[in-house]
Every structure is written in C-alpha cells, then in structure tokens.
C-alpha cells in the first residue's frame, strides 16, 4: 500500500426526503489499497459509493480522484473517470449477450460509421474472459444462459478490464459461493498490485479484517473513524459500528437442551427434477433445523419445496395434523412462512410501501366485516412489527425500494413475525445484514424457538448454522450427505468435510 492518496471524499452529503443518508463524510483512500467501508444497514455505505459511481447525484461535497474533482452522472462517466462498481444484486442485463454486457455504454470502440462490429466485440470479450480464466463463459452467448454466479464473474470483467483507478465492490461476496469469493479476492489482489484501489463493502467482519488494509466506519450516515485493519479486532469494529459494546450472546449459548419429540413437519422422498432428490427429514416442535452446503448443493430448493413453491415437486410434505403442503396458499394457511435468498425478486414487492409489504400475507386477519380493509388497522400492524425488528425508515408509507438491502430483509422478517407463523423457513436470513441486526435476528429466532415455533434455517454461513441450530443437515449434489446434532465440538471444518 502506498502513502499516496488516490481518492479524497470531502464533506459529502446526501438526503432522500427527510432521511439524511450521508452527512458530511470525509476520508481518504490510498493508492494500491483495499479500503473497507463498514457500518450497519442504512449507515450510508452504498449511498456514498453510489454517488461516487454516478448512480446517485451528490447533494453537496466532492470526490477528488488523483487531485482532480470528479462528479460522474452515470456509471459510464464514472468509468471514464477511472471508477467502476460491482453491485450487490444482479448487475448484468438479460436479453443481451455476454459481450454486449461487458461493453455496454462503451460500444463506440466497435462502431464504425454507425455500424457495430459484433465480431470484433465478441473477439475482444473472449480475449478478456480468457485472460481472467473464465473460458467457460462465451462472449456471444446470451447472458440469460448463465447462472447468478457466472453473471457476477462477467461483472468482474466488466468492472475491471479497463484498469480503473478505483473499484467499488458493494456487498458482492455474500452473493457468491466460496469459489466465487476466492475468484473475487484474486482480482482484488491483482487490482491492488497494479496500483489501483478497492473500496470494499461487506458485513463479514473476519473477511474485512483479512482482506482490507484500511477500514472506514459509518454509522447513521455519519463518519465515525478510519483505522488500519492490522490495529483492530472484530470486537473493536462491532463497537465502532453499533456505537456501544455488543452485550449478550451473539449466537445461542445453550447446548444441552433437549428438542421436543413432537414432529410438526415430515418431508418424505421429496425430489425436484434437476435440483434435489430423495430428501427425507422431520422437523420437531421448537427446533431450529439448519441446512448447509455449497451454493449449488440444492439446499436453497429445500425451502421452496417445503413452502410449495417448487415446480414438479415429488414426494410429500406433511404437517402434524396430516395436511399435505403442495402449494403456497396451503402453506401460508397452515402457518408456514418462507423468506427467499433472492430477496429483491422473490420476497419483497418493490413498488409497494413498507406497510403494504408487511401486511400482505395478513390481510385476511386484518380485514373487518365483509373483508373491508382498514387503513388504521394496517398502519398499526405494520408499525408494530416494523418497530419490533427496528426497520430504519421514515415511516411505513415509505417505498420499500428506497431501503438498504438489510432493511429490506427486516421488512420481510417483520411480515412473517406479524403473521405469527408456527413453522418458519428462512433461506439466508442474514445475507447482507449487519452484525447488530444479525444479533437481533438470532435472538428473535431463539425467542421463537423457546415459544415453540419451529425454524428451518438455510445458510451458506457455517458459523451461524453451528451457533444457532439444534441439528444441521448438509446437502451435496442435491442429496442429503450428512447430519450432525448441536454440540460444542462442531467446527466449520466438521461441516466442510461433509460438504465436499
């Protein structure tokens, strides 16, 4: 890491209505460094980097890159200034080829007299993909043919092929498998070696400490401090982020509690063609049952299969009273809740308010005589559960699309807490969520468990499975490859050995 300053962030401010998302934030990013930006959900990290990359306009303040003030109005202008971004969610466009996605906004180099030279564009894109070691991805293929992970790899190429001075990696790693993460780390290291700077946003504090040189902490849109990662511990960072010592247990502290023998859900011979097969297990009353495995192991399909959301599902999912769950309405009617890993596309209704999202599955319960809905009841209901899980918002009338990723997740959870479901299926519930809210969620799960609710937790984070679950089922190639009961002796390695 050089001592030379690459990027100066000076007195930056940004508001959305009455919400002050970023307030007078200033710090410096050095050349050849990985500079982490951490903070709770809604602390202003993404807002700040979105201003840097032209996605949001700047209210006041400035970015100075290599001594020159920059004020991009979109990502292409940011790219031209030497700044690029890899976003949290999907950043490639369906309906275009891989090459068109890589060069979107930069086609001019392949255009002569208004005509686009597709062959030259594909050739160049294939060369880049080869350089990055992504030979299995072909430039002329439609991007739709590739999965989320591969599309993220295309984004890495898109964001870094032109050797930008600053690359923003916004909460990307949580969406990637370990293999994908390693690929990303490799390129972060390369950028650093080439003298570029990486602004790295993540909620994974061990990852932050391991991969970054400097760390800037934001809280409620305000700059807190910048520290060298070598000088701080995970607990220090938690304290900076939350503003106080984190008290109480992070995960569950009990190890010897016996789970009830009462079976609330039986899954027998469940299969979804091409995804999972021969899945058999039982869920007990008051149990937290974890599912772990590699991203493509089929574990994410388990949640859908239980909730009746899988297509062509075979086998049976049966409740204690003998009710078979084959579709979503039946699942909800019989007190089953489900939160998807793909929050934006499968869980929240982006064009509706926070309140509407929270009330959505509970409209029948909230309805008055003859099904007439009452605004007052809905507001009270939404407010109660949004506050219970501390959604950072102006009010429940605010559009959910305006919230940060973590706060969107809180809205999804508030919805099901409000529904008071007896069986809760949580797929990656803490993905993109800061440590404070993570702790809140873990404590909430623990309370739910103690009150007799049963939880299925699907997660790629092994530590939270170990810390929270009574039993962990490991998936491999669409099948159950092992099962382990809660115990102090379980480590990440224990699970990894079962996964690979």
């Amino acid at each position, binding site marked *: 890491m050089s001592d030379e300053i690459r990027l100066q962030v000076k007195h930056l401010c940004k508001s959305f209505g009455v919400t002050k998302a970023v307030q007078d934030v200033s710090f410096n990013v050095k050349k050849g460094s990985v500079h982490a930006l951490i903070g709770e959900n809604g602390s202003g990290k993404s807002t700040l980097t979105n201003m840097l990359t032209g996605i949001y306009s700047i209210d006041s303040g400035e970015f100075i890159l290599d001594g020159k003030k920059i004020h991009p109005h*979109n990502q292409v202008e940011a790219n031209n200034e030497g700044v690029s971004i890899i976003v949290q969610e999907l950043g490639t466009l369906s309906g275009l080829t891989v090459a068109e996605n890589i060069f979107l906004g930069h086609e001019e180099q392949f255009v002569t007299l208004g*005509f686009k030279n597709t062959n030259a564009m594909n050739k160049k894109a294939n060369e880049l993909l080869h350089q990055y070691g992504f030979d299995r991805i072909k430039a002329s293929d439609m991007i739709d043919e590739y999965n989320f992970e591969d599309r993220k790899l295309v984004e890495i190429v898109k964001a870094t092929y032109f050797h930008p001075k600053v690359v923003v990696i916004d909460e990307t790693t949580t969406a990637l498998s370990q293999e994908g993460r390693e690929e990303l780390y490799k390129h972060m290291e390369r950028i650093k070696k080439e003298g570029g700077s990486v602004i790295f946003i993540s909620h994974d504090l061990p990852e932050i400490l391991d991969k970054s040189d400097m760390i800037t902490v934001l809280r409620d849109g305000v700059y807190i401090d910048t520290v060298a990662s070598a000088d701080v511990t995970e607990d220090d960072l938690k304290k900076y982020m939350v503003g106080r010592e984190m008290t109480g247990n992070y995960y569950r502290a009990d190890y010897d509690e016996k789970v009830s023998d009462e079976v609330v859900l039986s899954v027998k011979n469940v299969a979804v063609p091409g995804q999972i097969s021969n899945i058999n297990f039982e869920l007990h009353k008051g149990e937290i049952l974890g599912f772990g495995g590699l991203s493509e192991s089929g574990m994410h399909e388990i949640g859908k299969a239980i909730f009746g959301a899988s297509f062509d599902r075979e086998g049976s999912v049966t409740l204690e009273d003998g009710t078979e769950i084959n579709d979503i309405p039946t699942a909800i009617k019989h007190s089953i809740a489900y939160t998807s890993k793909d929050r934006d596309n499968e869980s929240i209704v982006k064009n509706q308010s926070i309140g509407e999202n929270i009330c959505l599955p509970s409209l029948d319960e909230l309805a008055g005589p003859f099904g007439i809905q009452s605004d007052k009841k809905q507001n009270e209901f939404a407010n109660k559960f949004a506050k219970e899980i501390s959604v950072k918002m102006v009010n429940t009338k605010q559009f959910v699309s305006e919230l940060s990723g973590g706060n969107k997740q809180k809205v999804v959870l508030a919805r099901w807490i409000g529904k008071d479901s007896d069986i809760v299926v949580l797929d990656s519930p803490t993905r993109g969520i800061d440590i404070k809210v993570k702790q809140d969620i873990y404590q909430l799960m623990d309370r739910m468990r103690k009150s007799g609710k049963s939880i299925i937790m699907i997660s790629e984070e092994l530590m939270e499975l170990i810390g929270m679950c009574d039993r962990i089922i490991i998936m491999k190639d669409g099948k159950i490859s092992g099962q382990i009961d809660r115990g102090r002796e379980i480590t990440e390695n224990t699970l990894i050995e079962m996964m690979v």
Partner: protein
Amino acid sequence: MDSSANAVGKKKLSGTARGYLILVGLVVASWLVFKIITPGNFGSPKNMLSYFQASLIAATGAVGFYFVLVMGMFDFSIGANIMLSAIVGCVFATRFNLGYFGLIVGCIITGAIVGFLNGIFYVKLHIPSMIVTTGLALIYEAVANYIAGGIEQTLPSNLRAFGQMPGDIILAVVAFIAAYIILNYTKIGTYTYAIGSDEFVAKNMGIKVDKYKVLAFIISGAFFGLMAILTISYGSSMVAVTGMASMSRNFVPTMGCFFGVAFKKYGMPLQSIIIGEFVINIIFFGFIALGAPTAIQDVITGLALLIIITLTTKVAKGEIVK
C-alpha cells in the same frame, strides 16, 4: 474452436432451426386446414403468393414497431399514423406534383414525425405510452381529416408501383434489411434490449434512456410510414376517418409484432414477424374463401392467434408473464 464452443454453436443453430421449423409448420398447418375445407378457391401457389404480398404490408410496419414493443412501450396510434402518413404522402405526390418522391418522402417523414411526437409526449409527460398514443391518435385523425378536407385521397394509377410486384417486394425487403441492420449492427439494437431488460440499470450504464425511447418511436413511426406507402398503393385511396375508427388498423401489425417477441428467444424476431404476418393472412384469406361472416372470422382469427402464441411462447416454469 474448442468443443464447448462447438456445443454452444450447435445449440444456437438448433434453437434458430427450431424457430424456423415451428414457423414453417404454422404456415403449412394453417394452409392445410383451409385447403382441406375449401380446396377449390384457396391456397393455390398463385393465391399463396398474393397472400404473402398482402402480408408484407403489415410486416413492414411491424418490424419497426418491434423496437417500441421490446422496450416495454405500446402504441395505439398505429392506424392513425398510417392514415395520416398515407394522406400526406398522397397529397405530396398529387397536389404538389412530387410524384413518387413526394409519396415516399411524405409518408416516411410524416410517420417519423408522428413517432417523434408520440415519443416526446411520452417521455416529457411521464404518462403511460398507451394513454399518450391513444390521446394523440385522436389528434392525428383530426389532422388527417383536415388535410384531406373530408375527401377520399386517391393515388393515381401511374403512382401505384408499390401496390404490385416487384415494387412492393422491393420496398418491403429494403425495410426488413434496414430494420435488421439497426437491430443487429447498431448501438440502437443493443440499447433497445438493454432498456427493455432493466431501464434503471441501462440508465446507470450511461444510456440516455429517454433519447432512445423517442428514437424507438421515430423508427417505428418511419416504418409505419413505409407501411402507409404500401397500404395506399394497394388500396389506391385513403379515407380520413375520425372517432378512433383508425384503430382497426392496429391489430394486424401488432399481432405480427407479438410473433417477434414470442420468437425472440430463438434469435429471429424480425424473421418471425414476417412469417407470422403471413400466417395471419393465410387465416384471414382462408375465412374469406370460406365465406364466413366477419364476426365469426374475427372470433376465430383472435382465438387462433391466441392459441398459436400460447403454444409457441413456452415460458419457463415460474416465469412471470405480464
């Protein structure tokens, strides 16, 4: 080339080939049905050529409309545009004695101006395109009526080369090639798909979304101008109707365009528009050969098209269709 690339190449080829196979199958099936029912007065090679020629009219407009539809917008002023463009073209050609030059330039420029107005009102007023174009269609009808002075505008026989072979085919082929080049070999095509896929991301990529939306309407309008040339050349005259009566002209090009969207996944949207319009015309002329009442024709044509699009647009399980 490595084996995986070969595999990809084969996959693509089979996709396109499958698309053509389905379309040709539809042509043969629709021909066969009516040929069996009315063997005498339907479906001879000569008849089929004339059906194809007739289908070129709507296909010429539909290939332009595809740009608007793929971006997620709609146009209810298609009929009004065709009517206004044809009347202006006819006036240029006859009243101003500009001949073919007046006809071609008058129709295309008018169509493009109508497209520009549609686009600019849509992006500036921030009103859904369906509402904007419906409102503007009333205005275009009134303008056409004013220009025509309430009189049917007739194209003299010496200016009707585009109403017969080879003029109509030449004009249509030029239009198809132009649309194909714009879609596949210019930025406009890439941006059309990008905006249709995710407008917000497209905007963040520096694409001037509003500019390209207006451009899509201009392209669409200009192609409807070309369709107007063929329409008035075939029919020899154009009456300026009012009270949204022009909307009856919307149906055929729109349906052809739906074929394009349905077959986009096979990588052959424009080709499928052309063949799709041919299928629509075979069905239409089949009913005429049957002597079926207009109402029955409309019902069965509508149903047949719904069935065709449903069978050919096999969406992935779980995919949301709007």
